[in-house]
């Protein structure tokens, strides 16, 4: 700590630029531990499926991500976000590209194949949009009044939202929207508007669920309606729509306090018997619940919360709105997406496919997350040096 402060002191002479510094050790360690638990689980899945390639890839991705994070932590985010127009354009173009030329898997076009690798533009869009808004809101805020800025911001979130919805990927659309909400909230959205929107949104949500339950007219497609019904009555849909959820709940529940351990024996685990399909992605938490039990789950939730809270704290400490937006956006991304994912696997929320950040298999997501945390770390370093500047003064 002392060393770090010294380093910050040394570098604090250059104003508005980040001096090289030590990243936040709590955030850094928790991120790596979370990623490590993910690798352990993917190892189990890979052994059962006989697909060692996914472990190797995820491990390489992790290494690459960590390097990227460290590099970005030493660069002022502002230097990169000045290309905000380009980021928005890149997000839209890649989303358009995937719609037309993407690889279709199971009826959804979410991936672009580049050489032997596939990459998922909607994951990239998350970080691009966070960076974009961090600059957009500041720049427009200098010229226009707050309300107009938020209206324009809202208009600009619609194209990526609908493009992702079209893939179709409802859950990522919702995630993008949630991140956006956090961004404008942090940016100072009027309390009255928040109250009004909340007051409208909660009944609307209830109506949507209600119409889905009673059938007949519904705002949702039949597919989504089935999912909601399956969420409310998993036993009735145990062989169809809620099959995954039931199996995942069974797997987690059967882990009990300490889990069944990491050894993989065919008949002992739901993972081993293949009852959770594609368990390396959206249902990885079921594997963790089954193998590591309640204790392991709590550790993981603790790590997720630590990362999230740490990001929010960094945001809170930051004096620049620009940095607050980036750090809060990342916190929202990691936090909300994790809780959504665990909510689904434990049957608290309707089944919707969304990966668990840093844990689920998926290179695009992993690298984008590390990149985002790299920016957060650079903000941390900037905050530290600002503090020490203040102390110095």
């Amino acid at each position, binding site marked *: 700590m002392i060393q770090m402060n010294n380093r910050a002191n040394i570098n604090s002479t250059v104003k508005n630029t980040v001096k090289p510094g030590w990243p936040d050790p709590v955030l850094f360690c928790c991120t790596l531990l979370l990623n490590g638990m993910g690798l352990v689980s993917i190892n189990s899945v890979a052994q059962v499926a006989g697909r060692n390639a996914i472990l190797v890839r995820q491990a390489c991705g992790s290494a690459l991500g960590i390097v990227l994070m460290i590099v970005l932590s030493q660069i002022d985010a502002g230097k990169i976000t000045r290309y905000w127009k380009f980021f928005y354009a890149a997000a839209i173009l890649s989303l358009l590209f995937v719609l037309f030329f993407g690889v279709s898997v199971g009826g959804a076009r979410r991936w672009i194949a580049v050489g032997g690798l596939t990459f998922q533009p909607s994951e990239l869009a998350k970080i691009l949009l966070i960076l974009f808004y961090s600059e957009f809101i500041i720049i427009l805020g200098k010229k226009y009044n707050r309300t107009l800025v938020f209206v324009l911001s809202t208009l600009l979130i619609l194209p990526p939202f609908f493009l992702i919805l079209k893939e179709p990927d409802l859950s990522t659309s919702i995630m993008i929207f949630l991140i956006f909400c956090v961004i404008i909230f942090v940016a100072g959205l009027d309390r009255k508007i928040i109250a009004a929107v909340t007051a409208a949104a909660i009944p609307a949500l209830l109506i949507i669920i209600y119409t889905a339950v009673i059938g007949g007219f519904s705002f949702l497609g039949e597919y989504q309606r089935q999912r909601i019904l399956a969420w409310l009555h998993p036993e009735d849909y145990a062989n169809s729509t809620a099959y995954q959820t039931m199996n995942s709940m069974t797997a987690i529940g059967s882990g*009990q306090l300490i889990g069944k351990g990491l050894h993989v024996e*065919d008949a002992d685990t739901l993972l081993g018997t293949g009852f959770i399909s594609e368990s390396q992605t959206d249902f990885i938490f079921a594997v963790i619940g089954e193998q590591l039990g309640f204790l392991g789950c709590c550790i993981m939730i603790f790590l997720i919360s630590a990362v*999230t809270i740490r990001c929010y704290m960094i945001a809170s400490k930051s004096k620049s709105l620009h940095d607050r937006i980036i750090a809060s956006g990342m916190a*929202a991304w990691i936090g909300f997406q994790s809780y959504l994912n665990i909510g689904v696997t434990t049957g608290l929320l309707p089944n919707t496919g969304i990966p668990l950040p840093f844990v689920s298999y998926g290179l695009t997501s992993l690298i984008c997350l590390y990149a985002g945390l790299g920016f957060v770390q650079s903000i941390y370093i900037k905050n530290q040096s600002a503090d020490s500047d203040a102390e110095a003064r």
Partner: protein
Amino acid sequence: MKLPNFRSRPIFLAFISVLMALTLVGRLYYLQIIRGAEFTQSFEESVSRTVSIPAKRGRILDRNGNVIADTQASQNVTIVDTTGNSSAENDRLNRIIQKTLGILLDNDEDFEEDFGISWNGSGYEFNYDGFNHLRFLADVYGYPLIDTLTPEQRESSAEDVVFMLADRYRIPRDMNTSKDSILLLDTVITRYRLALNAFQKYIPTVLARNVGTDTVDAIMAESDLDGISIANTYKRVYNDSKYMSGLTGYISLVSAKEMEENEGVYDAGDYVGKVGLEASMEETLRGKNGYREISVDNLGREKSEISYTRPQDGNDVYLTIDSDLQKTVYKLLEKTMRDIILSKLTDSVTSFEITEETDGSDILIPAADVYGSILSYIIDRDHFDSEDASESEEQMRGILQAYLESVKEGIRSELRAGRTPFNALTPEYQQYASYISRALFDRGVIDTSVVDADDEIYREWTGGSTESLGGFLYHAAAEKWIDRSLIGTDSEDTDEVFEALVQYVLDEPCEDYSFGNIMCKYICESGAASGELVCRILFDQEIFDPAESERDGIESGRRGAAFDYVKRLIENDDLTPGDLHLYPFCGSIVVTDPRDGSVLALVSYPGYDCNRIQESGYIDMISANPSRPLLNHATQQRYAPGSTFKMVTAAAGISEGVVTRSDTVNCHDRFDKIDPSPACWIYPGGHGYMNMQNAITNSCNMYFYEVGYRLGELGGSFSNDDGIQVLSEYAAMYGLDRKSGVEIEEAEPSVATKDVVRASIGQSNNGYTTAALARYVTAVATQGDLYDLTLLDHSQDKDGNVLEQYSAESLDPVEVSDDYWESISEGMRRVCANNSAFNSVRYSEEDGSGRVSAAGKTGTAQQSLSAPNHALFLGYAPVDDPEIAIAVCIPNGYSSSYAALVASQVMQYYFDPDSLSGILSSNDIPNYTNGD
């Protein structure tokens, strides 16, 4: 403008984040700690499955240890889907299935179908109609409700459905030959059945049962048939089945209902006895299934075995039946029936209808009726429509079509305008009308749930004969009994509904194959189709192997060649009475051992092959046979006993004191104490003065009319009811009021309830099964020992330990005076003494070759004016110490002398088995004797 600083907002969000994390921890606590044990249990259940291992069914053996029903090792070809879910894997699965099915097809194995569509030789066709058809369509289109079907789906053809499914499973549709078409259908069926099984893939789907070794070898030789295996199982083998079918019955796949009613006993795919001893001895025979508990993966594929419970074999059942005797009795009965037909067969007349005035001895069977029967039941008329139909077949097809058109025209005008009362129709149109009426009821076109059963016209049509079909149907339309959706109209107007109904009748029932069966007789009688043409089709369809000279004779049109040929077919038993549906076509014999009430033989003719019951179409085929092989003629059909009942009347008379053994009745003229006055069979002659013994010997009706009448006078003045009351008491004393005790399905007998005078000679509404008569004659033979007959000797386990010893239960003996027993036994002895057929009943050489004295009573019962009388005979031998008692019933067998002939031959064989070849080669058939 500068945006305000909201630095507390991220902290607020962090706070929310903590709340959410705590919620999830709470949820996990609930799942893993509170409900953890429960989930662990449900996890274990969700990954383990139980597979049943069929138990080996016990055998059925005769009294000498000859096996009648056996259980043998057998091999099924099964498939489990082990492929993944990519498109390449889908194609691989299709290739595996097609290759396997190809092997099955090449080896003529019977593919397990059980599907709503089949291949008829030239195209796909639906197997069901009405509700079942729509249910099938909804299933294949994947709807839980029939209502979800679109109009196009409802109208889809069988081919549409096959192609739709082929596309769903991405099965290539190359169809050049009919073999390709069959292969495509079978592949579609297999994929469909696998899909139904998608969540329990550990359960193998059976493709073919009881396959031959060639098939097994061919499948084993292929290395790339993943998921295909040869499953070792059991099959039931019935030895000499057609002789034994009435006894054994058969087993068949357990139904959902049976599984529900016997919870925990059966598993899906088990076989269970459906009729006969297989059904009644089910508990003894079936054994107990074993179980394998296995762990499975998410697709239900087996991963490992957890536990194994060995199945327990069923127990063997030994019968009192002597299978050699059983077979011989069957053969003798068939031979006599054949000889009767041959003696009546003629080509000098083209048609013969029996009327009230016809004397039994005058009845003839025109050759045209044989041709008609062949065309109805032997020839495959569907083949006429196929591409490779022969010239003769095409010619016959034209004749059938033209005849059908004229019949339809006749029916149309009869329905619309003619409205001839049923009893005034020609016999031909009576049959058509009955068929149409039955078809409309069976298919639900006339909705029985809304029919008013008390409606006068309905009752007249179903019970009487003075209503016309057209009149009844018009009335049904007016009363809205017609399910209009089935006849394609929604009109409310009676005339329009009736018109649609007429069209339906002409389009549907009249086009049935069974309707054609009725027509064939009349086509041949009318001369529209000649015997030569029928025989040429027999040659073309290669049903029998004709001699060169026979073929030449028919090809060259030699006069009488066709008649000679079919006569030869009947003589050689190529065409049996059971095949022909010419009187007589069914019969039954029950032989008992009077010393212990056990049944030595119980024959129902014609039998069927229980080994073929599982074959698709076999049950349908034998059900369509008018001689009704599936019905046990010995236990399930009741006939008036005729004069064989007279021993009951005599017992009543002597016990009630209305006659003594020496009292006589003068037989002359008619019995004029009642009106209309019945006469003795000998009328206009007369027997003169008859005492009890002579009345039995001569079967004098007059004597028994008088006894019956006197029974009615017991309470003072004559009363039918009083007489019936007394008579039925004595029938009950002989056990004739209840089932005989044999351990198979049996109809309740019905003792006459009216007209005591005619009931006394076994007419009126008396109705008894042959088995019931066998118990009765057993009691007569033993002078009073009444048994509940039994077919069972004992049961034993597979190690030979006897589990249960059965015996016929002795009931209250028939107690009548010695005068009675002496009179009737001497009377019955003389019946046989006077019948030359019984001269040849002799002991075997080692027993001294002496004559065996036999006693018996004939019976002739008239049940229809338009069909020959039923022939019955009850008898026993030797008279002094009876070893066998026998009851014979040949429905529509013309004369009791034929029944007596079979009985004498059975006795002859029983006492001297070596005489059999002589009996079988003799062609003596007694002349028709009038009387009874």
